[in-house]
């Protein structure tokens, strides 16, 4: 998957976003993506969003309305990645 992609949300808003990671879930059978807003000159804090997605014509159609279980799973994915990154940083 590209680093910078056009994402269309559930309300049909389209914008450029930077992908942090993506994965598939065997439990829900869906694909998920975690992303932030994309800016040419980043500054300040960026909010990270997540949702399930389908890819069509180089665009990601993302649904950010997730169930509690899905939210928990995404939190766990992110936590695991952060923990791994931190572990490496402490070396």
């Amino acid at each position: 998957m590209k680093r910078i992609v056009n994402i269309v949300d559930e309300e049909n808003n389209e914008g450029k976003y930077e992908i942090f990671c993506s994965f598939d879930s065997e439990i829900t059978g869906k694909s998920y993506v975690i992303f932030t807003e994309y800016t040419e000159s980043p500054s300040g804090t960026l909010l990270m969003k997540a949702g399930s997605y389908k890819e069509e014509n180089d665009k990601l159609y993302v649904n950010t309305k997730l169930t509690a279980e899905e939210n928990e799973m995404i939190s766990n994915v992110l936590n695991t990645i952060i923990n791994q990154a931190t572990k490496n940083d402490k070396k």
Partner: protein
Amino acid sequence: MDEKKLKNAVYTTYKVFNERKKDGALQASGALANYMKYRDPNYFTSTNGARQDIIKYIAREELAVYLSRYLLRKATSERPRNHYESLLYQAIQRKKLEHISDRRIISELAYSMLGEEKNFFEQDSDKIAEIACQLFTDEVAYEKEEEAHRIQQEAQKQLESRFGVKNLRINPIAVNYCAQEVLDGTQISIQNDIKNNGNLEGRPARNYNLNDEMFATTDIGEKRKNQEDSVLIMYHPKNPKYKMLLVADGMGGHQDGEKASSQIAQKMYYWFNKLDTQLLSSERIGDLSREWTSQLQEINDEINKMYANAGSTFVGAIVGEENTLVASVGDSRAYFLGKDNELYQITSDDNPAYQVWKRRWGQPEARLTPQMLDAKKVEKDLLRFRKDSNRIHSAIGVGQYDVRPHYISVPNDQYSTLMLFSDGVTDCLSDTQIKAITQRTDYKKLSQMLVAEAIQQDSYIPRQYRNDGDYNPVIQGGKDNATVAVLKNKQGDER
């Protein structure tokens, strides 16, 4: 931004990151994003006012770590070449350090080494900044690749069993794997370590993709024991609209051929990184070719000094403001697919038979009848079957005193796809085959497809030439290392 504020900003980011992660992953996201930006070398090299300050800060705080890792990689892969490398090499031998991960020891070593150099840190801060910037960019990119891979693997392991997470992909942050492997020397030696990597199923191919714009594939082939081809695709650090692609095909016994081609790729990487972007304007194309020749001459002299009979062919392209300048030495070729969807060979082979063919058919095609055009095509394709097709009269190194590259400049809006080849591909594929593959293949898979076809297909000479002693009746697919670099030029793409 003054140093104190900067230092605070960096530490605050760390602090916020560390605090927020306790509160839940999504809340930590902003800090994580900042953290990743901090780790991103592109952030530091972007043209913002804080750049120099950041670099200077990093120079003092982190130079030793990055320098030491750089030296460690160098010292363990080749003989030490200077005072720093020699010191570190001795230290490594003494302490039997085998892994880069022992940061503390390595950092201490580097500090002590630098300390011996007359108060290194008191030297001109701009100079330190420049060194640090280069090392930082190289090392962070290298580290980031390893780190992302490791994090991905570890996280996947944990998440799969607990949450049924599959295919976790953490997006790499624009790392140029091709350049990294050229610089650390693994591109040419990696074929023994990897199996089933890349889309050439079951083959030890290396595939590279830079932002879905530049692509490269290199494969050892079926017969050779060494990978003597080197390939490099890269952007100019100051502006990504300027690009360079090159293929070098090593020649010479033992492993010297691969060293020669690798050396060309490495030196060209550093040269292009520092190349004055003013030379990339269309008015300065003459100056650019002179600079390029002078650099190739320098590399030629170095290779001649280091290796008795080793050398390499070379084909490279520099994409400038409005034109692409292509240089070639030997029989590595460049082609482009024009706006008219036709395939054109841009370069001339430094091969006697090719030169004869070119002299015979060099006139504009408009003057040729259809029969003559067919004959031209047939004769061109016969060249690769000639027994003397591997004889070239120009190369870099191999004891040659002078390097005389051929240059040709192509307007950027005249082509949609630019391709560079080692002869392992062009010996096995005719121009007609290259054209057909280029037209039918998605450009993202083009370099892989061309290499795969060159390895897998045998070519047979037309029946009437089968008993002619000047020709080989069959060219076996994969007889040589096969390498392709591709640039998808959106400016010239009207397809």
